[in-house]
């Protein structure tokens, strides 16, 4: 890595003692010698193991649940179903008033995705819990499922999630989050060329080294200590408090170094049910995702579809950009309404475009619920935007890097969501890329600056 101090030298005083110094990490020796304690390194006498019975269907009604055989399995201590969860229907962003509550801790009458938790089994060993889970009999009536966002949005599509009533998240702005800036149709009319293209992505896995999980200990003072690898301590504690209808002062959450998060450990899935198990049995409980659960059950990055329509001039100026973004939330909201909205605030990318129209939809399907991941609401949008930029440059016969200089935002430029640009540095990054990659651009682009014109 190289630090290029020649850029923005006038905005920086390099007079600090500790900041800017490559101090060795104090936790590194522990990591590389295996001495760092992770939550799962704790083992308590009498600790129970929790395993989930999961839906084999994408969408089904639950006719009945029979746990009698499972209860007789050696080592089984407790079996939990929906009726055991004090506030079973929840949604995590209710803490910032983004409702409605739309998800069950344990399925109640219906499952909406393949893999949904239905019954929790607590046993003396992991193996006993797994074997007993296989003996739980659930009678399902399979329902038609919706797999595709465009199908989900059609009138008459089966309703994925009755708590929403329609297959999209209803924002205060309607069926999507909207950004309107300038007159996009007038922009298209004045453009030399129009290019409309569609981009898609598949869900991907966070793939942390350490899978999601927690270990819960009931303390002598009626409190519960939850050792967890959540990325957000109080967010998880406060949601647990709601789900279990338990005052927050009964809960003590202890985190530490987490073995990788990437956004995959903010969904509050394992802690509430494990604490409930500890409460109802009076014993420590551990609930740790297997690698298979981490990869196929925990929320992935959403599948997205992005449609971009641009109006561009022969001289390289983009005069209008319309973006329609679709985020596949799967069966439940989790963080997806936020991610779709974050996308609306991110388009049209780091370019100054006078006419912009943005609609971002959060769509429900019978797919594994997606949620936050590194680059939430932005990564797939950037893929779409930057491939579109490449196509536009080639359409008008311009060098793709020079084309970006022409449209790059600078300090003071008004963004589509009506914030003036501050602290821009796109131009300088591209200038350095031109040099480092030996990608020549015209001298006038190397003379540009992100500072406001005339500043």
């Amino acid at each position, binding site marked *: *890595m190289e630090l*290029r*101090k020649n*850029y*923005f030298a006038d905005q*920086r005083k390099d007079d*600090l*003692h*500790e900041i*800017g*110094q*490559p101090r*060795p*990490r104090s936790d590194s020796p522990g*990591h590389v010698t295996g001495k760092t304690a992770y939550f799962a390194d704790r083992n308590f006498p009498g600790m129970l193991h929790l395993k989930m019975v999961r839906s084999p269907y994408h969408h089904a009604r639950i006719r009945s649940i029979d746990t009698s055989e499972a209860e007789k399995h050696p080592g089984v201590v407790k079996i939990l179903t929906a009726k055991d969860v004090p506030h079973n229907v929840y949604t995590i962003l209710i803490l910032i008033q*983004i409702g409605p509550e739309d998800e069950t801790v344990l399925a109640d009458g219906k499952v909406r995705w393949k893999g949904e938790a239905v019954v929790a089994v607590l046993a003396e060993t992991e193996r006993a819990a797994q074997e007993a889970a296989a003996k739980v009999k659930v009678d399902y009536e399979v329902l038609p499922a919706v797999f*595709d966002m465009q199908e989900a949005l059609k009138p008459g599509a089966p309703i994925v999630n009755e708590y929403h009533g329609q297959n999209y998240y209803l924002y205060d702005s309607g069926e999507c*989050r909207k950004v309107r800036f300038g007159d996009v149709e007038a922009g298209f009319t004045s453009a030399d060329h129009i290019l409309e293209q569609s981009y898609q992505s*598949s*869900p991907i896995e966070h*793939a942390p080294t350490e899978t999601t999980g927690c270990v819960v200990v009931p303390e002598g003072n009626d409190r519960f200590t939850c050792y967890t690898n*959540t*990325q*957000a*301590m*109080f967010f998880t504690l406060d949601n647990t408090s709601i789900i279990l209808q338990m005052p927050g002062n009964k809960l003590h959450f*202890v*985190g*530490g170094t987490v073995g990788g998060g*990437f956004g995959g450990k*903010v969904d509050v899935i394992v802690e509430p049910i494990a604490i409930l198990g500890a409460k109802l049995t009076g014993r420590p409980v551990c609930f740790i995702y297997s690698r298979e659960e981490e*990869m*196929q059950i925990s929320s992935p990055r959403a599948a997205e579809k992005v449609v971009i329509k641009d109006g561009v001039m022969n001289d390289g100026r983009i005069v209008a950009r319309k973006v329609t973004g679709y985020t596949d939330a799967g069966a439940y909201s989790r963080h997806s309404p*936020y991610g779709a909205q*974050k996308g*609306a*605030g991110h388009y049209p990318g*780091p370019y100054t475009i006078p006419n912009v129209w943005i609609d971002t939809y959060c769509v429900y399907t019978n797919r*594994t619920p997606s949620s936050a991941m590194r*680059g939430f609401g932005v990564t797939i949008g*950037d*893929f*779409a*935007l*930057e491939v579109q930029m490449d196509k536009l440059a080639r359409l008008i016969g311009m060098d*793709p890097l020079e084309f970006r200089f022409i449209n790059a*935002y600078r300090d003071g430029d008004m963004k*589509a*969501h009506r*914030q003036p640009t*501050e602290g*821009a*540095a*796109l131009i300088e*990054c*591209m200038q350095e*890329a031109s040099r480092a*990659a030996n*990608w020549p651009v015209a001298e006038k682009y190397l003379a540009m600056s*992100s500072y406001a014109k005339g500043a």
Partner: protein
Amino acid sequence: MAIRRGRGVAAINYPTGMNLGGDPTQALVHSTPTGNFMVTLSSVDLGQGMKQIMAQICAETIGVPTDRVVVDTADTDTGPHCMGTFASRGTHRAGNAVIQAAKEARQVMLEVAAEELEVNASDLETDGQGNILVKGAPRKSISIFDVALSAHFKRGRSISGRGMFLIPRSYPEKETGAMKPSTCYAHACTVAEVEVDDETGEVTVLTVKNIFEIGRALNPKMVEQQLVGGSWMGISHALYETTEPYYPNRDHGGTDFNQYLMPGPGDLAETEIIVLERPSADGPYGAKGPGEMCANPQIPAVANAVFDAVGVRVDTLPITPERILRALKAQTGAPN
């Protein structure tokens, strides 16, 4: 049939924080009797090194070496509230809270030192090595060790401080979408070079040159670890990863690291990282949040390089050999 070479570029920006939900983080700082400093937080270290960075920020602000600072975090019984470690917010939000707490603690420390030295607190400065000096008369000094002892056992002062950083929630305007979705923005430009085998569809990423503008590299070695890892993740996202390769058929979803495709060491490109620093107006010592941003620009840069190499667009991620071959066949009119 041939191995074809191409290169592609992408330029991006990335928002710091989650303004659309309201974004608070708090911190406490106090000294031990012998002049070490404790930072108490509830922020989570995901392995990226949050504790180390908070120690350096506290040390810089108080004016002591970093090894005099211990960070106690992620315990809800002791640590004040943090929204969480996500949205590229950890360093920015918690760092600002730590600066505020450390400034308050530093002020008490200087007041106690002033009493011991019989001067005004405003005439004192720290040397960054654990001593407090009178400006212009550096021989008149006292160690922070002695100041802390005095505060605890003689003067009855608590060398401590409270810090809080709150970005109030921004509510998007319904019709226009006017909003303030984040604070500062990090930037990047990536150039990727690839080879594509037009017989097998196989893509080899040869080089990735990343230029990242991150506000301020608070610890350059840790910046490097995060940016290199992010760059690798971007390649993986572009070419390999999916939990549902043949959705809605779920049969081929990976269930372990043997089945879930990711690049191995031999598949990773020669990676170059260049960092620019334009300090942000609102970040701790000018820092921005580059943690998420650094995994994004490689994806479109690789996609554009594949087009440059073989002249077909794959607009669906991941860009697998199968998709490239189908696009090549479609281009020549061959049946897929």
